[in-house]
């Protein structure tokens, strides 16, 4: 007696499944690895910053992360229409990330003016606690937008940590971003 003819369709399905699995693996490996290192609004990632700028179209400045000092990471990055927020976490302040948020405006209330972080930028600070933790909010207010930095740091290393995150988060002027997007990537950014 002959052996049965195996249904050809089953083999075809296996080939299809294998191809889909292979393609998925390649994309996941390629993009997944890249995503881990790239989900940061880095000042060099122009497209990513373009998206941040699109979240608050009126903002004259866009926050971006320059070179992160050793021990710092960006555990979250959320962009949506109306706001962008991301967190900066230091290994010397586990569980207490600095939360950075860009919006169209903010109420500084009784915050004290402090050294400006850029041309046309008014910077304020309001402390809710000094000891045992150094906690409060830093504000960068500029035309069409505002960036808040909520921090809650352990007293002691807080001076170095404050300095490090302030140095890490840069303000990129919108017109500069528009220009670089156009020249480097050929992309437009309205307005």
């Amino acid at each position: 007696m002959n052996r049965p003819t195996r249904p050809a369709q089953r083999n075809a399905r296996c080939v299809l499944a294998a191809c889909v699995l292979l393609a998925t693996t390649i994309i996941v490996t390629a993009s997944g690895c890249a995503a881990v290192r790239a989900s940061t609004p880095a000042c060099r990632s122009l497209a990513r910053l373009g998206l941040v700028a699109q979240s608050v179209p009126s903002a004259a400045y866009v926050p971006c992360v320059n070179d992160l000092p050793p021990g710092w990471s960006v555990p979250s990055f959320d962009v949506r229409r109306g706001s962008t927020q991301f967190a900066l976490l230091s290994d010397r302040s586990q569980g207490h990330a600095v939360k950075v948020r860009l919006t169209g405006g903010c109420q500084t209330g009784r915050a004290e003016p402090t050294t400006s972080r850029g041309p046309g930028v008014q910077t304020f600070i309001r402390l809710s606690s000094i000891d045992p933790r150094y906690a409060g909010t830093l504000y960068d207010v500029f035309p069409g937008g505002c960036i808040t930095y909520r921090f809650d740091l352990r007293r002691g290393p807080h001076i170095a940590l404050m300095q490090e995150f302030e140095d890490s988060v840069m303000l990129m002027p919108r017109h500069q971003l528009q220009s670089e997007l156009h020249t480097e990537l050929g992309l437009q950014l309205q307005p």
Partner: protein
Amino acid sequence: MGAHDRILLLIAVVGAVLTVALDFRPVMAAVTRADDTILGWISDLRTPALTAAADRVQALGSFWTIRICAWLTLAALIGVRRLRHLAVYLAVFLGCSLLGTAVARSLGRMRPGNVTILAGWSGYAYPSAPVVALGLVLVGAIHTLVPAGRWRSRAAYVAAGLMVALILSRLYLGVDHPTDALAGVILGSVVPAAVFLAAAPEEAFPVAYRRGQRAHLDIGGARGAAITQALNHQLGLSVAALEPFGLAGSAGSTPMRIRLTPTPVRTETQVFAKLYALNHLRSDRWYKLARTVLYGRLEDEKPFSTVRRLAEYEDHMLRLLRDHGLPTPRPYGFVEITPEREYAIVMEYFDGTAELGSTLADETVSSGLAIVRKLWDAGVAHRDIKPSNLLIRDGQVLLIDVAFATVRPTPWRQAVDLANMMLTLSLYSTPRRVFDQARRYFTADEIAEALAASRSITIPSQLRSLLQADGRDLLRQLTRMAPERAPVAIQLWDLRRLYVTVAVLAGLAAAVAATAAYLQTTSLL
């Protein structure tokens, strides 16, 4: 590979190539320029009325729409106990969601920059998350809940219409680029469709809402042709017709009657066959696991490891029982339909038989009890004695369906066989006559032990429901005739039952935790 499969594969490959290519700046710039041109044309069509309409339509891709669709599908799949489809659905939903997130983060594509964005958005543009999500829930629902054929085609058209409406609204509102939507369609619709076709093929896991046992497979179409070919090639049987047979009495396989064209080699005109598939194997495993946890081991119930083993075992049992002179069907062997997935065991079709129904003569009752005696003497237990497994021909009882039979069973299991035979025969006779006939083959103590071992769980469900409908309390009447004997305990506690129970509980706890994590990851909560 069929044309349909090839098209799906080609589209998936195009999507993968496009995604990889977009990582290169010149490609991204060129594609974005083309996208911007199209969006520019579309934005020229903007009017207040169209904007209001598009804003409403794009709610098709809202979180709530997606969640409601996904939850309804999950509830339906659980309700109809279509576990294979449920597992594939969950895997596809998770896999495509994660893949979409990974690709989006990797490319970090902006929203359209040349038109004013008129609607809310969140996250990166490529691939369009709402298009992915709507595609996933629609394709998932179609492939798991809608029967193949006309209904599935109609549902696919409706789904395609909804997808097109969502995509057009999002392009109109300037939220997505055309390529974002294209990638969303590929990831949310094409890839899931390919996975469903591969992981839950219609021929093996049909979506159907017919009455009857869930275990029964459709033996028409491609499967019917494969069975016919296998019978011809492997057993030399020339099949004239194939039809389901005795479905009501079988839960663990798909029984069928096969009409044959006699040949010089084969003179039979019909045979009986049972189709075994993976789902039968899984049912067997779950059934035995549940019995282990609930009652301890009622018998040495080790699950079968493969479908082939299941078919081999029944074929072996048929031969063994024939060797011991039991009136069971003559075996013809079994055929391989799909390697390791589907096998059909073929045996003699008992022609000229009648099912139990009318009042039985003493001679017939005696022949039934003689069967149990022979089983005992052969050191075999049938383990599924019930009316649908007994046939009458020329006043003699014939025994079928030996799939559950076991060699060298415990005395308890053999006693249960006797009790079930007595109860079955009593349904069509009187307890007194059955008891008297039983005394010809068994001692009073043996009968008393058999009846003392009989419990609801030891009685097959068909026999149990017939006993309830009969209303004579046959077990009690029979027990009164036998010497007094304490009931045999059925709950067995041993180490195996303990660790199986602990493993099942741990598995349930892990499943709950995994479900919570899953729902969080896929944003279904």
